[in-house]
């Protein structure tokens, strides 16, 4: 039996992108459409769209590096939308066998990183406001990203002596300091570091050219300098 194909309109709705985006992706080879009998209409297999939409890191890094459009279902334009989607994730996660207690720490880590993006960029977003928030609980991965100021520029408002992205990220994860001083705040990423150190949760976090990789059994918090300078922040949480 022939597999039922989705029209380009249905595919656009499925992925939450514009029709023109799908046409462009087809022409560039990023997401190739099916054309029946040499016709010009574009069709898509649902399975292909599902696989395409599962590459969370590709969408997140493509967006913050070069503003590449991504499926709209991953976009949270405001903090309230992020909170609503996080609550939905929490509900599914807490019913997953083995996560009956751990879910709250995974939600805490995700919530702190996402909320930081909104709190630190409020009224200061360089271009697109909001964050990328995608997750696949089967694959046990959560990806967050923003096109904001990044950790160095944020913390330089209170610590103008910070010499590098690496130093800024180090401070963000280890000291009680806030980019919004004199408001008293800045404990979130410290707790993220502690929770990730103690629990079966892995974290990759990058801002500018600073990278934090806390993975495996013997996790040590260390900030290293990566190859590329990324704007904003990008985080991958695995569990």
């Amino acid at each position, binding site marked *: 039996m022939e597999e039922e194909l989705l029209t380009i309109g249905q595919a656009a709705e499925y992925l939450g992108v514009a029709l023109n985006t799908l046409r462009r992706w087809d022409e560039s080879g990023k997401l190739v459409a099916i054309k029946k009998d040499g016709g010009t209409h574009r069709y898509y297999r649902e399975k292909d769209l599902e696989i395409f939409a599962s590459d969370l890191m590709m969408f997140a890094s493509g967006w913050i590096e070069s503003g590449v459009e991504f499926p709209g279902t991953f976009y949270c334009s405001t903090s309230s939308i992020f909170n609503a989607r996080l609550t939905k994730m929490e509900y599914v996660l807490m019913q997953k066998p083995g996560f009956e207690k751990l879910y709250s720490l995974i939600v805490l880590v995700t919530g702190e990183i996402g909320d930081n993006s909104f709190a630190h960029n409020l009224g200061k977003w360089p271009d697109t406001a909001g964050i990328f928030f995608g997750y696949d609980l089967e694959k046990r991965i959560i990806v967050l990203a923003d096109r904001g100021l990044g950790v160095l520029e944020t913390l330089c408002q209170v610590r103008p002596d910070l010499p590098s992205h690496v130093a800024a990220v180090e401070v963000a994860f280890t000291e009680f300091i806030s980019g919004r001083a004199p408001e008293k705040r800045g*404990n979130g990423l410290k707790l993220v570091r502690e929770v990730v150190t103690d629990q079966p949760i892995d974290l990759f976090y990058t801002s500018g050219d600073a990278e934090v990789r806390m993975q495996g059994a013997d996790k040590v918090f260390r900030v290293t300098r990566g190859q590329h300078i990324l704007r904003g922040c990008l985080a991958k949480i695995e569990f």
Partner: protein
Amino acid sequence: MKLQLEKFGTTLISRELGSEAFKAFQSTLRELSPDEELEIDFSGVLTLSPSWADEFLSPLLNQLGDRLILLPSDNLSVHATLRILQEANKQSFTMK
């Protein structure tokens, strides 16, 4: 007086909403007599983040001191959050 924290929601994450919750609670807090304790009950809360709690519990601790009593919880995020707040504020909560 006992406050069921879940009245403010079960997923308590953002600073913004923590701050709103604190402001909203001030009118109720005025009913607390000078020697009365305020007990915080975490039951029903699914996730408590340090950002939300820093906007709500930290200023309550400043206002009430020893009269702020935290009831026991077996939620991991509540434990982790209270630990970091005590470290950041260099002040301990009174726990029951």
